[in-house]
């Protein structure tokens, strides 16, 4: 067990736990406002203080974790669900038109400035967590498609694939039985990394007001709303910021740790 794996696992676990617990319990109700108690510094009553509506920041961070994690997970899910089959197909039919189309399509998506697209999507369909998910998810598709294609191409040259063909198996079946199981490690590793990127992206989007809508708490919006106040109430900006930083850090470390643990052979550049 490498150091980074442990630290990463712990950090990530903490926030996932916080998110889960927030479903059943939070120190305070994050929807109930308490204007008289606004902008309180951290104290015994409010461990991380209160925001400009007197809401308990600790509770909001817990629920915020829920939002970020949910958005990121679904976004990565979309990326995998669509990206992996595309990558497998491209590799199975390499050199053909299909392959060409898929890869060019990927390049095209990559060519679009992601944040702008996110903004445009929300401009069309209105700002909401769902649209944030879509916006982030779209850009996960090519990531996985490329990853899988690359890995699959090298797997297709293996003799055991040839053996499977000799045993009369078709491309689809081989992709499923031989290729996919052998790229899962890669997927797990890349998955965690995209997950952390997703959290960062969600924070960015909700920071510019395109993420989850109020009153649902979200880390990015907590930062945005506290911006004008953090010069005299630093805790408003410090804690949500740290929450993002630590979660992303945790996931990245976890990703690296998994990479080394699962497969020493692929010490590849992360991005």
């Amino acid at each position: 067990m490498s150091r980074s794996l442990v630290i990463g696992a712990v950090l990530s676990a903490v926030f996932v736990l916080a998110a889960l617990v927030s479903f059943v319990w939070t120190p305070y109700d994050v929807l109930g406002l308490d204007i008289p108690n606004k902008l309180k510094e951290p104290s015994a009553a409010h461990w991380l203080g209160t925001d400009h509506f007197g809401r308990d920041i600790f509770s909001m961070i817990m629920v915020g974790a829920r939002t970020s994690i949910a958005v990121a997970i679904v976004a990565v899910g979309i990326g995998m669900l669509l990206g992996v089959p595309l990558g497998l197909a491209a590799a199975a039919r390499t050199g053909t038109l299909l392959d060409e189309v898929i890869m060019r399509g990927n390049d095209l998506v990559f060519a679009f400035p992601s944040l702008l697209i996110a903004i445009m999507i929300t401009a069309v369909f209105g700002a909401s967590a769902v649209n944030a998910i879509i916006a982030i998810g779209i850009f996960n598709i090519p990531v996985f498609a490329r990853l899988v294609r690359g890995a699959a191409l090298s797997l297709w040259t293996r003799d055991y694939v040839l053996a499977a063909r000799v045993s009369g198996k078709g491309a689809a079946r081989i992709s499923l039985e031989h290729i996919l199981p052998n790229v899962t490690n890669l997927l797990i590793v890349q998955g965690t990394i995209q997950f952390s990127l997703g959290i960062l992206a969600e924070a960015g989007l909700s920071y510019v007001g395109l993420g989850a809508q109020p009153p649902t708490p979200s880390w990015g919006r907590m930062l945005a709303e506290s911006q004008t106040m953090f010069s005299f109430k630093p805790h408003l900006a410090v804690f949500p910021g740290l929450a993002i930083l630590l979660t992303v850090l945790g996931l990245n470390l976890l990703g690296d740790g998994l990479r080394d643990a699962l497969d020493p052979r692929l010490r590849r550049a992360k991005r």
Partner: protein
Amino acid sequence: MSLLRVENLDVSIHGTPVLKGVSLALEAGEILGVIGESGSGKSMTALAILQLLPEGARAAGRIALSGHDMLALDEAALCGLRGNEVGMVFQEPMTALNPIQTIGAQVAETIRIHEDVSRKEALARAAQALRRCELPQERFPLSRYPHELSGGQRQRVVIAMAIALQPKLLIADEPTTALDVTTQAEILTLLKRLAREDGMGLMLISHDLAVVADMADRIVIMRQGEVVESGACPAIFGQLTHPYSKALLAASDHQPERAGHVFEAPLLQVKNVVRDYALPRAGLFGGARKFRAVKGVSFDIRRGESLGLVGESGCGKSTLTRAVLGLEEVQGGEILLDGAPVFSGKRPNRAVRRKMHVVFQDPYGSFNPRWKVGRLVAEPFHLLDDAPEGRAAAIAEALEKVGLSGEDAEKYIHEFSGGQRQRIAIARALIIKPELIILDEAVSALDVSIRAQILDLLADLGTRFGLTYLFISHDLSVVRNVTDRCLVMQAGEIVEEGATEDVFERPRHDYTKQLIAAVPQLPSK
């Protein structure tokens, strides 16, 4: 005093010993052959001499290279010696050169590091060195990049680098293993010549007894990090004492017992088969270009027969194999197994495929690491329309046939050695009781002793189940020992065909003659 003297050298990597008390000596102008199978520590010995051991390795003992105590010298001093006093040639010419530097620059570098000379002069001397390695500038300008050269040519560049400064000692670690037999012969003669010309000591490391036997003045046989036997060559072959070296010698030229009835009726018929590949389009509007890998090949295999197919890399034998297996459609001619086409109506003919299977070269690449052996072995059942009942029994049976046990079905492939894996591969081939088994370089990656065992197994199975073999290999000596008839393939064509014995004793085609001449011979006992 001798040029190189290694005295009870111990090397351990992260604590695990890899060399145990290795001692050997090499005089100037002498050729020392170091023989051993994988894991014998022969390469580690070489690296130890250059002090290029991998990280975490520690060496004890004594290495004296023309007076220098290699273990005592500091890094700077060592850099001064490497390439200057001692040069080294590695096994894999394809990766041993920096892909983005010209061969000229890379050879010249050796000179410029050790001597303060102008770039111009260094290049001039690099040109000489290359010429000595039979890469004259007229045909191979210094401005060439590695990827523009063949494997043999690259190996020559590597050698040129090593001998550019006429070092006292040249270490060649499996310099020809990755090369075709004819190229191998050329490289070996080259090395020999250079050694003689410069009165240079040459340490030739190889797994192949024959290769060394041809060249060496003295021989060292290693096994599991120890020297088991050494002596003058060829005399030593007469008086081998250590059982391992005896076994090794025997295995190197092993002839398995084969008894089996060969019928007249052909099992596989290949009728002037043509196979084309589409090349990347020339330019944007250039039409699709084709490369013809197999040019109208015809041959038959009789039932119960073992047919050899020899040829050097790129001669088209792998392509032909895939065509025979019905993996790819052919552009001309037809392939009949038991009278039925393997490939009919755009799609492989499953009914026919059941009658043949294949064993590949690489024991490590031919199994899905995530599957249990049982599932791997059973994969060919997919060819049957209805998987047979008693699947488990069938798997166990197949495994036992190849000398493994039924329990092994529950294990994963990484728990097995190379030889065992090849047995599993054979089990996989046997499980649906095919008539034809295609052995595609099936034993090429194995150490000689293991190879011998596998060859015996194949022979035994052949007799017991009346199997027919198509034995594809670049290794002529093996083909000679295990086939009844053989085909010689060159550039997509069959240039010679006949009973193995005749082909080897009385080759008719020039190419065949070359091939056979190039095969290194063991001294007859």
